[in-house]
């Protein structure tokens, strides 16, 4: 019975003799209490020396996956994300579509989070994939690509805060799509922020995220001055949200210059 159930879910490969059926993480005896770590000191500096409105330094490089049409790799200190774009290629389904299809898939490596993730796609990955799609779709000229599909695959190698991870994935995917030479109306830069004790922490990391009362992820096209996607959760005052949106758009403009720089570098490499 059980085998049948598992087979029907296409998970039969998970059952084999080498691995135990149930595993747990051990209870960690904490020497330092995480609750006691201060998120900011008296001068308003955060644990890594940033001010509240600063984002982490970004490392962004294109063309790391030689097999893909376009690719990019982004690193925000601990957060590490690779993105590969395949297409535009022929849509496999028979029905005609006058617009191109955009297919985004985000995947967390099993070792990327504090707790080990299973290797099949879970609900969170499906949700995040959809959010990346929502944020990217308005920027890509899908109307120019009838009968075609663009596949955007994102692999999270290390996750240091899920909201900032989503923002980095959107930024990285946008650069990878541009690297694939697909026509876009503008690049999409994305930035996240956490609301903690009445303050707005820009580009929060995992520990900050664990203490947040709310969060926001904003995707923005700086040249067109248009927002493609906003996701806010938690209990927040309207005035604070307005301020957070403003701060996020500013941060996005900074991220945009990094994106442009890396694309310019990749063009220079290709010319040589």
């Amino acid at each position: 019975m059980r085998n049948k159930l598992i087979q029907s879910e296409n998970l039969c490969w998970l059952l084999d003799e080498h691995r135990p059926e149930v595993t747990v993480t051990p209870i960690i005896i904490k020497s330092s209490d995480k609750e006691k770590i201060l998120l900011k000191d008296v001068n308003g500096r955060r644990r890594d020396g940033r001010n509240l409105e600063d984002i982490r330094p970004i490392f962004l490089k294109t063309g790391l996956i030689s097999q893909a049409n376009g690719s990019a790799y982004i690193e925000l200190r601990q957060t590490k994300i690779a993105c590969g774009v395949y297409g535009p290629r022929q849509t496999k389904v028979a029905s005609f579509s006058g617009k191109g299809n955009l297919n985004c898939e985000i995947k967390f490596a099993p070792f990327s989070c504090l707790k080990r993730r299973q290797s099949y796609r879970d609900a969170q990955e499906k949700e995040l994939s959809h959010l990346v799609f929502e944020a990217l779709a308005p920027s890509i000229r899908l109307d120019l690509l009838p009968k075609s599909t663009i596949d955007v695959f994102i692999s999270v190698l290390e996750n240091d805060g899920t909201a900032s991870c989503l923002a980095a994935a959107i930024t990285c995917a946008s650069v990878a799509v541009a690297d694939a030479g697909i026509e876009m109306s503008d690049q999409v830069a994305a930035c996240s922020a956490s609301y903690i004790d009445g303050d707005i922490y820009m580009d929060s990391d995992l520990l900050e995220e664990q203490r947040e009362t709310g969060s926001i992820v904003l995707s923005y096209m700086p040249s067109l001055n248009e927002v493609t996607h906003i996701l806010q959760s938690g209990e927040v005052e309207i005035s604070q949200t307005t301020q957070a949106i403003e701060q996020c758009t500013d941060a996005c403009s900074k991220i945009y210059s990094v994106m442009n720089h890396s694309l310019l570098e990749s063009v220079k490499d290709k010319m040589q």
Partner: protein
Amino acid sequence: MGKVTNENNVKPNPTITFEAETFRRIQPEEYLRKFVQQHVRPDGRSYNHFRKTTVNLSCITTADGSSMVRIGNTTIVCGIKAEVSEPKLNFPKEGYLVPNIDLSPICSPRFKPGPPSEQAQIISENLNKLLKNPKVIDLETLCIEEGKAAWVLFADIVCVNYDGNIFDACVMALISALADVKLPKAVYEDGLVKATEEKIFALSFIRIPYSISFAMFDGKHLLADPNEMEESIIKSAITIAIDEAGQLCNIWKVGTSCTSEQLRFCISKARERYVDITSIIEKAKQAT
């Protein structure tokens, strides 16, 4: 408007000429043969030349041990997560070591999303064989309490870029990540396993195997470290796994038959390459 006339009056060429790229697409095997006849490979390497190899250790902080290996363009990340489970009834003192590779669609257009492909499962199984027989890690050191609790090491391998010779890269990543593993001190108390926050204890190796692969073209040319393009054309390959004493651990040979001289040649080349791999990994250890 008049008729279109051939102004240059060019004679039609009796032999058809192609761009090299077109030739490669329609006659891949012949294309490779033309290179091999000149004792060179399409990417400019000689037969016995391995691609540039780099290793990065401890690159993933959420993992208990990790490494990133690049062989040419092939990029592999291996992260090891330690969890706890009950040992098997017939081996109450042993822990588990579970290697698993994910060939996700990000790394090459040949892979589709969904459950692991046949190739991924075969590689996982081969890695498992390499670790278990002959033994690489003493699984008894993973025991926390006999018959009650033991460490389970999930060695998950993610392929970021697929450009051939994936198995060698996987073995390098797996072995170097295992060497990078630091586990906390754990105790078993009334059905619960408690672990300290600091990680101190490293794994003890019985032997350190690495694998070295060759593609065999037309039954006589042995090409070391084949890339994706060569692998897609050549279906015969020899993979040799040897340990630090130069002893053979495993041999995988697929495709057409090979002579014993060829096998001996591969083994001697593999021994030379083994020395290079150890020095690359030693350098990486010093860098961290």
